[in-house]
């Protein structure tokens, strides 16, 4: 029998992998993937808490669906930005994208 804790362990690992990736990866696409990992781990949490603690309700499930839609839109925007960055700077290395500071 799979317990609630198993799901939570997986999502926690996903979350911190995402954080780690976000902080350490130099490629913008990899950073974007890391963000997706973080988002998805949170959505797993929503579903799990809904399924195990309040099985008669559906808010958590719907919130996950909503989050998936949001992350899809966000990815589209992010990809567009990344393409523009690439056109202008000829690479997508995070370390080079510091022109807008100050």
């Amino acid at each position, binding site marked *: 029998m799979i317990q609630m804790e198993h799901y939570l362990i997986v999502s926690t690992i996903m979350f911190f992998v995402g*954080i780690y990736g976000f*902080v350490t990866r130099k490629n913008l696409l990899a950073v974007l993937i890391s963000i997706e990992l973080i988002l998805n781990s949170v959505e797993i949490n929503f579903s799990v808490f809904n399924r195990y603690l309040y099985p008669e309700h559906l808010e958590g499930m719907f919130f996950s669906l909503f989050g998936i839609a949001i992350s899809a839109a966000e990815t589209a925007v992010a990809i567009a930005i990344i393409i523009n960055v690439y056109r202008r700077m000829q690479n997508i290395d995070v370390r080079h994208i510091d022109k*807008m500071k*100050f």
Partner: protein
Amino acid sequence: MGKALFILGIPLFVFLLTGLAGKKLKPFATGIIGTIGIAIATLISYLIACEYFFGIGKVDGKFQEIIPWTFEWLRFTDKLHIDLGVLIDPISVMMLVVITTVSLMVHIYSFGYMKGERGFERYYAFLSLFTFSMLGLVVATNIFQMYIFWELVGVSSYLLIGFYYTKPAAVLASKKAFIVTRFADLGFLIGVLILSFYTGTFDLSELTANKGSLVVATTAGASFMGLSVATWAMALIFMGGAGKSAMFPLHIWLPDAMEGPTPVSALIHAATMVVAGVYLVARLFPVYVFAAPDVLTMIAYIGCFTALFAAIIAMTQTDIKRVLAFSTISQIAYMMTALGVSGYGGHEGLGYMSSMFHLFTHAFFKALLFLGAGAVIHAVHSNEMANMGNLRKYMPITHITFLIACLAISGIPPFSGFFSKDEILTSTLENGHYILYITLTVTAALTAFYMFRLYFNIFWGKREKTYEHKPHEAPLSMCLPLIILAVFSCVTGFIPFSDFVSSDGVPFATHIKWSVAVVSFNVAMIGGLVALLFYARGSFASDLIVERIPKLYHAALRKFYMDEIWMFITKSVIFKIICYPIAWFDRHVIDGTMNALAIGTQRISSSIRVLQSGRVQFYALVFVLGTLLLTVWALYM
């Protein structure tokens, strides 16, 4: 009477139009717009004068104050508020006529005189501004409105004197005029504040009503340094008037102000702006008479001294405009003296009426003199007497009109100056000021002398004078105003002035006092004849006299060193004792505080701005670590 507002509104509108759109219009068009505007204003002011003096003005044999339009602008307390409005009474109507007429003449004249000058449209815009501010000054309903327009007059005269802003002398002269009059206005402002503090009102009608009883009642008992508060206030207000009217020792700006274009000199420094001080004293006359008679006596003596002083200087000057400048100072001083010796009501107020009368006649003949001098300068391209002579053959119209003006200012009957000057002399005599009477009579002789010295030097021969360019008569646009003003100078003396203007509004009868008239006529003739002997054929008698009294002559030539004295006072007294400590305080304490704040902020910001690296991942790391810390703190603390 509501149309009085148009007199103010039209010049303002013309100023805004020509000032803002002047570059887009042709210069000639701006001139036309300005001239038509002022012509309409002139027409309206004549209509108002007719309506007021022969119609609605007189109620029960007394001229009333009418306020056709007013609105409240700033309110401090229930009693103390600043209004803007239009006040119609005998002297303001008279001033409206004088200002608009002279201004119209100057506008027309400038077509010829300023033709082809750079900044023609700017010139006309400034003329409109000046006319507007002077008109606003005379119709002011309260002393604060008067002060506002007073300053506007100062600004616009600054702009006009400095019209040739590429000429250093003109720039210096405009600065000098502005600073000197501004310095005097400081006294005016303090005086106004003292007066309104005690009386609780700015309103001129309230201040002067019932023989100035409000001022007398509210300032009773209050004194400062041995003099009553009313005396202080009125003396300080007079200081402002003395600055604008170029009374000794604040007269130094006026001769230098001749650097402006000559028609401007006619407008500002002969007919309108310099009489603002006289007008101010006349406006507050009941207050002066009843609350501060000592100040009035002081005004009389200052005026008398200035008249003599300026006349002596005028005798030695060789720049024709400067001669006229000093004669202006001298004539304005006559008006001040007349106000100073005057009493209130009926024949006692002869001085008041004669002062206004002289203001009226003087405006026309002095404008004529300046415009005539402008025509001469236009013809020979020089201000110096030495470069002129024999011009009567070349410029007959200018010659005749200039002669009329000389006769008028010298007080030869039947020209206008005779009548007004006679009234002034009579008023000094009748009020028992014999010293003033004698001094003014002597000054009248000197006036005739220096005016005819000027006249003979310009229009008659030293020897046979030859010119490189043949001088020519002025164009029609310049001759026309000369002729009109000459007609005015001939006829204005016959106006029964005391039927219209008097200290208490009740008309009274005046007669020429023959004993005074004969004496003044004779001294004027003597002055004129001496000038004729000295200068008509270019004799050397004047040089002989100069050799006898070289020190006095040179002192007068250098204007009795007043410029140098003021320079000394400003540089070594005012600058060293007052200005330097203030400047030090400003630089080190006030600026120091502000600079310390600015430098501190900048240091802090530059030391923390390295945190703003632009690396998103670094921000994210800080954010995550911060969240973890907060979590740990929330769990275990």
